[in-house]
């Protein structure tokens, strides 16, 4: 295991009396894509700003690539790219000029910057629009220009705050494809979002934020396991057989309820084979037998239901 790219221990941020982030621990290894999930105001953006050193934590410590963002901000910021929520560019400059400006701030020499910018714009499919003013860009194009900036700077970590908010499905797909490519190239990505299917489709791990704390960190499967005790959800539809009665003798079945066209069964293990056998033996025509673990959105809802019951 390589050394962690980002490490945060006991991060706390207070504004006056209100505590926005209350003891967050995170560890990321190289090439990982971590999704930060949680309702608005859960402390996701504040945590991101603390990781970047743009906001000083009230308590706790951050190491980014082994460096403290408050002590060595320039080195940390040159290795970490940040794409803020609804990223802004200078509307009166063209896309290429905007990137040139950040390249100069990053201290690249102009000739090298020009080739890097051209390559980055090409990769995010903005070459054709590169010499148009950013004022004419759509929202998806701005987000892609933001990604091009990270590419141009060749950062090792990308922190994306709500990268897909307000995008149409096609732009979202395009953007996610790009992020996936970045991570395949070894870039470590942190991404915050409300869109659960976005997170589920590209993140290796998720962190659930609630009221300034991280309620859960792990893979989506582990989350499902935790909130549902690893239960399987099975949808059955069969003609000519009373599934409710047939299932009676099976072990590890927690719940059976009719759901309009068929039955919804919750079980501690995969009981499909036995169930199918029984239905067929009883002379029923099996039309559907579908097992799945909970989806991220179900798990998310279950998680926050639990949390709010506790509160």
């Amino acid at each position, binding site marked *: 295991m390589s050394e962690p790219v980002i490490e945060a221990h006991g991060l706390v941020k207070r504004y006056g009396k209100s505590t926005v982030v209350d003891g967050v621990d995170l560890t990321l290894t190289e090439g990982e894509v971590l999704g930060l999930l949680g309702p608005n105001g859960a402390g996701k*953006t*504040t945590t991101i*700003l603390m990781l*970047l050193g*743009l*906001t000083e934590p009230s308590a706790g410590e951050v190491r980014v690539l082994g460096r403290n963002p*408050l*002590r*060595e*901000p*320039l*080195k940390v*910021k*040159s290795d*970490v*790219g*940040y*794409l*803020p929520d*609804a*990223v*802004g*560019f*200078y*509307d*009166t400059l063209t896309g290429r000029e905007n990137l040139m*400006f*950040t390249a*100069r*701030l*990053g*201290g690249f020499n102009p000739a090298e910057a020009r080739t890097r910018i051209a390559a980055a714009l090409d990769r995010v499919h903005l070459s054709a629009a590169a010499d148009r003013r950013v004022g004419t860009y759509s929202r998806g194009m701005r987000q892609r220009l*933001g990604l091009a*900036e990270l590419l141009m700077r060749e950062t090792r970590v990308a922190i994306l705050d709500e990268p897909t908010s307000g995008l149409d499905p096609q732009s979202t797909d395009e953007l996610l494809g790009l992020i996936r490519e970045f991570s395949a190239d070894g870039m470590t990505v942190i991404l915050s979002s409300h869109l659960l299917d976005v997170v589920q489709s590209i993140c290796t791990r998720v962190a659930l934020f609630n009221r300034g704390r991280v309620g859960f960190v792990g893979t989506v499967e582990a989350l499902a396991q935790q909130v549902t005790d690893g239960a399987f959800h099975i949808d059955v539809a069969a003609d000519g057989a009373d599934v409710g009665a047939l299932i009676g003798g099976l072990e590890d079945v927690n719940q059976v309820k009719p759901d309009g066209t068929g039955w919804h069964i919750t079980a501690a293990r995969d009981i499909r084979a036995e169930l199918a056998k029984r239905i067929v033996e009883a002379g029923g025509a099996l039309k559907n037998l579908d097992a799945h673990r909970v989806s991220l959105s179900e798990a998310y809802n279950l998680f926050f239901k639990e949390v709010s019951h506790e509160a």
Partner: protein
Amino acid sequence: MKREGSPLKGVGTIAIKEAADHMTSARMHLIMLLVLLTAAGSVWAAIGQIRVTTAEDPFLFLKLLTTARDPLPSFASFLGFLLPLVAIALGFDGINGEFGKRTMSRILAQPIYRDAVLFGKFLGGMLVLAIALLTLWLLMVGLGILMLGLPPSGADVGRGLAYLAVTLVYTGVWLALALAFSTVIKTPATSALAALSVWLVFSIFWSMITPFAASVISPLDPTNPMTLLSQYETQQALARISPSVLYGEISQMLLDPASRSVGPVFMSQLQGALVGAPLPTLQSILIIWPQISGLFAAMVLLFTGAYVVFQRQEVRA
């Protein structure tokens, strides 16, 4: 806490971008057109006046800038009145505009210190102002040479350049003020109004307020003539809070070599003086050195205030 790297990294880049933005903005073009027209008008009027009256004046060139002919005020007083407006137009949305465009968090995430953003904005504004003022000065001098047919003397040029430098500092005060407001106030419209109110108070209402305030602070005692002097001095001290007053005193002293003092002068002090004889340039500068320092201090103070607020500001506004 010791931090690595130079806080000045990126200042040049930001300053040049800022200057380029100003140079191409419609806002700047409009206001410079206004300044140019008024300046040309007042110098034109001054030339007409000089031709009629003082053909034998030894400091003809400086007269170009100080002579007023009704209904136009002189070039110097025009500048004192209008330059703050130019500076405010450049600075009022410096910081809060970046937040409004949502570019601030992206810029601050670049490998530069926050210091570079504010300082770069200030330098960029000063660069534009310096270019504009130098152009204006050269235009007026050129107009003078053409219309009067006289080359300026060395002393004229020296005083003119000193005047130019002080004018830049005076404009810098207002730029720093506008930037400070743009840091403290979140919406550009409000910060523009706030800066314009300060400008109005200092350039128009201040001269009405100070006599009143002085008569309250040091009232006249009919039996003691010295109270008259102390009231006048109080009034002058209060008036000098306004950068416009300081600038007025400096330009009077620099552009009129014959003036000896900016405060009250007693008869005893005039003994042996050759009234109307010009002072050497350096002596004139020496007299108004406190005013120059005052203007510079005001600029630095305002910038520092903005700096402190900006450094502590949260990135997510």
